[in-house]
């Protein structure tokens, strides 16, 4: 039996998420209060669409909440998302509930109320914009564990301080490790005596916003 996912509200995110989940063979149902949005959502092949307010129990019932494994609340009202998750969990026994929230301060409260995963869209996007706009030479930065840890991919250009040096010769911040070196099509798990070459990409694992210092140490910027 394929996993059942229920997406409530949030047109753009719902559309992208639905397409990606369907590709991975999930059974996806989308609920949206706006009829025109529903029509556009229904263009996605294989997506079941229910028109209505997802914070109403009978709409959730109709959308198959009882058979749902994961419910994701994407509306732009924190209050609606909270009630949707609570209804899914308590009334329909959904295993996992995920909510997008606007106000980051509500994160702890949502968790306390039994929402399994809380994503603050505003904070996440702000974080990514800051990274992209103010940190150079970083191709990817993935926050893990509520943003306490991040995984970054850093390219080592010609003439960078780290180029042609062994790993132990570089003074990285204590909270950073180089987890992997990507060299052409090779993947190296480095030791202290591994030499970094210009053109390498390093995968860094860092905690508590140490990545900026580490990148400066490695690339000189």
């Amino acid at each position: 039996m394929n996993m059942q996912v229920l997406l409530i509200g949030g047109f753009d995110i719902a559309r992208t998420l639905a397409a990606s989940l369907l590709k991975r063979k999930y059974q996806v149902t989308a609920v949206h209060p706006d009829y025109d949005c529903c029509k556009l959502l229904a263009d996605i092949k294989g997506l079941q669409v229910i028109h209505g307010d997802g914070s109403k129990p009978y709409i959730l019932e109709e959308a198959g909440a009882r058979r749902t494994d994961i419910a994701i609340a994407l509306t732009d009202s924190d209050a609606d998302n909270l009630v949707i998750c609570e209804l899914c969990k308590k009334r329909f026994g959904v295993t996992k509930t995920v909510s997008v929230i606007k106000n980051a301060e509500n994160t702890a409260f949502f968790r306390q109320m039994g929402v399994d995963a809380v994503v603050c869209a505003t904070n996440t996007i702000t974080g990514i914009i800051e990274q992209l706009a103010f940190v150079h030479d970083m191709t990817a930065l993935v926050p893990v564990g509520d943003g306490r840890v991040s995984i970054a991919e850093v390219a080592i250009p010609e003439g960078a301080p780290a180029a042609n040096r062994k790993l132990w010769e570089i003074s990285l911040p204590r909270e950073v490790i180089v987890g992997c070196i990507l060299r052409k099509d090779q993947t190296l798990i480095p030791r202290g005596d591994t030499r970094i070459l210009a053109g390498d990409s390093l995968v860094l694992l860092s905690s508590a916003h140490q990545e900026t210092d580490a990148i400066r140490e490695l690339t000189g910027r």
Partner: protein
Amino acid sequence: MDFFKTARRKDSGYTVIIGCGRLGASLANAISDKEASVMMVDRDERAFRKLGAAYGGLTLTGDATDIAVLRSAEIERADTVVSVTNDDNTNIMVAQIARNVCHIPNVICRLYDPEREIVYKEFGIDTICPTVLSTREIDRLLGKSKEAKEA
């Protein structure tokens, strides 16, 4: 009405009302008339016009689903929180913050749709549902007129 009695009896009582609609405003006016302290929160400043000229309580403009706004309304020292905005989900969320984060002893919220009961039942939040109240009242009135006819 028991609610007004408690408000009068306890001089130090502080009530926070969320939503300055007809119900919220008339409640705030009544509490203020009893010379108990009351705070009205609404996200629309213009809503405060519904408060009477003699209203002696406080007002605060802001979104009550934001915990920071509730904190600036000094919700922590309230003994009663009444959430009566026109949005059920907002009322549920405010009531749950008041109950579970701020540990307010009396939390009352108005809900138009009684179907969402399961969400707040376990938290000991008192709710009033206009639909249920009206149904009961109409039923009573119908019963009365039927009795009158039979007599």
